């Protein structure tokens, strides 16, 4: 078939380019009510009650408050978050009450006639205040979780090194800006069953939340994924609370309810990337050989636990970067504040810690006057090395090739030399590193690099605990012809799950792709292959798709060998005997995989993806605006099952990282987002985007599907920002260790570059 490695047209593309794809807000339905949410305007307080304006006409409107919630918890890692606040209010934007009615305008008016009576309390708005316990808002110490990783004796080893360096690196919130805001449609059937159509990544998360809040059994809950207009982690955990809200209104009104956030509400109320402060202290030799590192990570978790413990864990596990260290000590904490809860966002803690270690690598290179990529190349992890958790890397470490390819494509050596000339005319000697002569005098160009890794699949024992399950069916189409069908809970949110799963299954079944269907994930019809997160869809779940399809092929082929005829004849024969045939498989972890959650020792991930990004920027020396001109990258994806989709993931992920580096800036005052619009929370346009040169490196993973595919979705998000900051440094001499690199920040820092 040779489907693997071919960029086939994506099957869901036709509906998308003709406008026929039905997203949740596109489903027209008579009788559906519109739901909306009353939210807290204060960051912390005590809710004394919800007061309805008696002069307002409430007829035909449904109002729901905490008293109407059967079990008022959102079932996630912990059950600290209520579906609707009942007593404590812990962040601005927290949902307090819900309203539904026939007409959106009347519902909006009704919201303004509902008053939350809140006694304000002093909020904890920064991680510094949280750690100093200016108020106690979570447990005894305001810490959601602490993770410690130790290898050797880092403190002693650093003390004995000739070069000891320390730096602190910080990153801000980031908003997902999936272009389709969050939305859901919910209803109840006559048997007390809950039905949800959701723009989401993880139907079974919602399923779990509904069972818990409404006390239902598995088979009374049906969650179906609607065509989903982007997620990036933002539709991992948040859609659960939205589905619960819509179901509460549907239950109280006896009508189906649709809730679609507008952009402002979506930015104000939903999760964001965790802000971070990371301090790195390293010891190395004068030639740049790395010896030991000690890292302290603090993440701002926001008001509720949500997924912070696992985001923290992934962040800690990536904090030492793609390098060999004999001695490592990492302490990471996720801290509670009275700000909207932070949650999953592409990279899941790793972009924050990779930002820190990559900026620190540049600090070492600067201090030792070594080429930044040469320093990295000297210390790259190789097959046979062990990671900070003691994981032995036995295969698929393609990082050296990534660096080599990206260097070559970008003409790194040449570009680094060019910029090391004399100061430009009119630059007032402000800048240590002037621009090359070809560029107008008031603009400076430079190149910078980053090298990074991303663990594919769940952290530690996660894949064992979840045991992804997938079914592949043989059934008869309407004309009686044998067809195949993949059933799993992994969603296509734009990244191409349907395409790649059909490629993998068709290849294993030796049939064409158009004979293999992909089932819309619906908890009533698909086994639980786990959430669509953690760069696990192709590598972990795709592997199970491949195993199930191969087993089904073996069944049919076995029948053919026994009874004769063609494969087609055998399939028909089996259909005649059984009506339909289903093979279900579950994930088999690699033999010998070992992980200890208590000590953080062992195989943190089944395997890692690797990358090198090189950015070329131009900085305007009058306005301090930065433009990324080009972005070269090479990523080791194991095996590219669909090269165009791989490049789409890489370029999209890198651009999100460029946005995070240069322009995306969530501004909060008193715990409230004050720039909750696309007018002032600005993401890159097509004119802000660099030219990408995207190289795929294939160092296969022996257990990856399609001949060695590894996880890819999050990897590029880890590398973009540090490459951009390094390029700005090369262009201007301005060292910026805090994102975003806004013009005003660079201007302020430029004063330190004066000599």
């Amino acid at each position: 078939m040779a489907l693997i490695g071919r960029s086939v047209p994506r099957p869901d593309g036709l509906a998308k380019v003709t406008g026929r794809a039905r997203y949740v807000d596109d489903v027209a339905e008579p009788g559906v009510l519109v739901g909306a949410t009353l939210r807290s305007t204060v960051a912390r307080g005590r809710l004394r009650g919800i007061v309805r304006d008696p002069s307002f006409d409430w007829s035909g409107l449904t109002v729901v408050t905490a008293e109407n919630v059967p079990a008022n918890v959102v079932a996630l890692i912990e059950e600290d978050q209520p579906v609707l606040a009942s007593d404590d209010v812990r962040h601005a934007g927290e949902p307090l009450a819900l309203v539904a009615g026939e007409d959106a305008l009347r519902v909006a008016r009704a919201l303004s006639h509902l008053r939350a009576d809140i006694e304000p309390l002093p909020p904890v708005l920064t991680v510094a205040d949280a750690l100093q316990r200016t108020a106690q808002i979570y447990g005894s110490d305001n810490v959601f979780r602490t993770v410690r990783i130790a290898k050797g004796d880092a403190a002693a080893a650093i003390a004995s090194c000739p070069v000891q360096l320390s730096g602190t690196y910080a990153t801000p919130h980031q908003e997902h800006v999936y272009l389709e805001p969050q939305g859901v449609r919910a209803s109840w059937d006559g048997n007390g069953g809950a039905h949800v159509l959701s723009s989401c990544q993880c139907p079974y998360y919602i399923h779990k939340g509904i069972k818990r809040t409404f006390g239902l059994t598995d088979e009374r809950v049906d969650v179906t994924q609607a065509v989903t207009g982007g997620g990036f982690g933002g539709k991992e955990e948040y859609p659960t609370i939205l589905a619960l809200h819509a179901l509460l209104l549907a239950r109280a009104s006896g009508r189906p309810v649709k809730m679609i956030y507008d952009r402002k509400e979506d930015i104000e109320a939903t999760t964001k990337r965790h802000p971070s402060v990371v301090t790195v202290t390293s010891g190395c030799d004068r030639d740049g050989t790395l010896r030991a590192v000690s890292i302290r990570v603090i993440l701002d978790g926001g008001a509720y636990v949500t997924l912070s413990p696992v985001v923290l864990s992934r962040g800690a596990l990536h904090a030492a970067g793609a390098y060999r260290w004999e001695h490592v000590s990492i302490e990471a904490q996720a801290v509670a504040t009275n700000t909207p809860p932070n949650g999953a966002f592409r990279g899941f803690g790793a972009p924050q810690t990779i930002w820190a270690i990559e900026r620190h690598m540049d600090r070492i290179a600067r201090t030792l006057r070594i080429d930044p990529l040469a320093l990295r190349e000297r210390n790259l992890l190789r097959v046979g090395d062990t990671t900070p958790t003691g994981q032995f890397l036995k295969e698929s470490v393609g990082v050296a090739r990534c660096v080599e390819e990206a260097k070559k494509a970008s003409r790194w050596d040449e570009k680094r030399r060019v910029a090391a000339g004399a100061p430009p005319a009119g630059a007032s000697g402000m800048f240590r590193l002037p621009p090359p002569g070809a560029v107008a005098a008031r603009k400076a160009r430079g190149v910078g690099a980053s090298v990074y890794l991303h663990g594919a699949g769940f952290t530690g024992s996660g894949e064992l605990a979840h045991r992804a399950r997938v079914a592949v069916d043989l059934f008869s189409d309407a004309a009686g012809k044998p067809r195949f069908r993949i059933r799993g809970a992994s969603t296509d949110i734009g990244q191409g799950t349907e395409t790649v799963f059909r490629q993998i299954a068709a290849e294993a079944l030796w049939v064409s792709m158009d004979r293999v269907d992909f089932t819309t994930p619906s908890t009533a019809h698909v086994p639980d292959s786990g959430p669509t997160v953690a760069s696990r869809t192709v590598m972990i779940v795709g592997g199970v798709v491949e195993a199930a399809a191969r087993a089904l092929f073996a069944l049919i082929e076995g029948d053919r060998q026994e009874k004769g005829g063609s494969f087609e004849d055998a399939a028909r024969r089996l259909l005649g005997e059984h009506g339909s045939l289903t093979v279900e498989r579950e994930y088999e972890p690699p033999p010998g995989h070992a992980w200890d959650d208590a000590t953080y020792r062992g195989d943190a991930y089944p395997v890692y993806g690797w990358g090198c990004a090189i950015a070329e920027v131009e900085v305007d020396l009058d306005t301090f605006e930065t433009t990324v001109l080009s972005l070269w990258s090479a990523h080791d994806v194991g095996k590219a099952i669909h090269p165009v989709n791989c490049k789409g993931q890489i370029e999209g992920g890198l651009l999100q990282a460029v946005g995070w580096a240069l322009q995306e800036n969530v501004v909060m005052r008193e715990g409230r987002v004050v720039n909750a619009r696309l007018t002032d929370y600005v993401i890159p346009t097509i004119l802000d985007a660099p030219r990408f040169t995207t190289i795929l490196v294939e160092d296969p993973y022996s257990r990856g599907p399609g001949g060695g595919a590894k996880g890819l979705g999050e990897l590029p998000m880890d590398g973009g920002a540090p490459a951009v900051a390094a390029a700005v440094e090369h262009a201007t001499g301005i060292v910026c260790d805090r994102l975003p690199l806004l013009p005003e920040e660079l201007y302020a820092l430029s004063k330190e570059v004066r000599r």
Partner: protein
Amino acid sequence: MKAVKIRCTLNGRPVTVEAPPAARLLDVLRGPLGLTGTKEGCGEGECGSCTVLLDGAPVNACLVLVGQVEGRAVRTVEGLGDLADLSPLQEAFVKEGGSQCGICTPGFLVSAEALLAAIPQPGETDIREALAGNLCRCTGYQRIVEAVKVASKERASREPG
């Protein structure tokens, strides 16, 4: 506000729709006219997901009042081509990876259609400038630029003579 009858040409056909004249064109298209291919991403003209052609020029349907289209021609993604008869742009977006989650795709297609009508063989800068009012969060835009280039070549080859 009282509904009035508004007449316009929609995807080449004359239509009459009853709506309050201050209703957003976006809501009238998606509601009474049943054309849900035009999407809402921000409601304030920043994201371009609701781009439609008004007398051939791209506009944000969230910022146009339906009363403004009286007697004029509106074209939406549904008017560009259909499953059996894709436009070169639609075909190229599928093949070149110009569409991922798809929510921004109708807006991009409509903006690109206006570009190719004005400049049949656009350069990279023409393409980027013409699409600067459309946000995409999935692709990094490069596959979109490629798709428009491929479509412009395909259009040229489909031209008679």
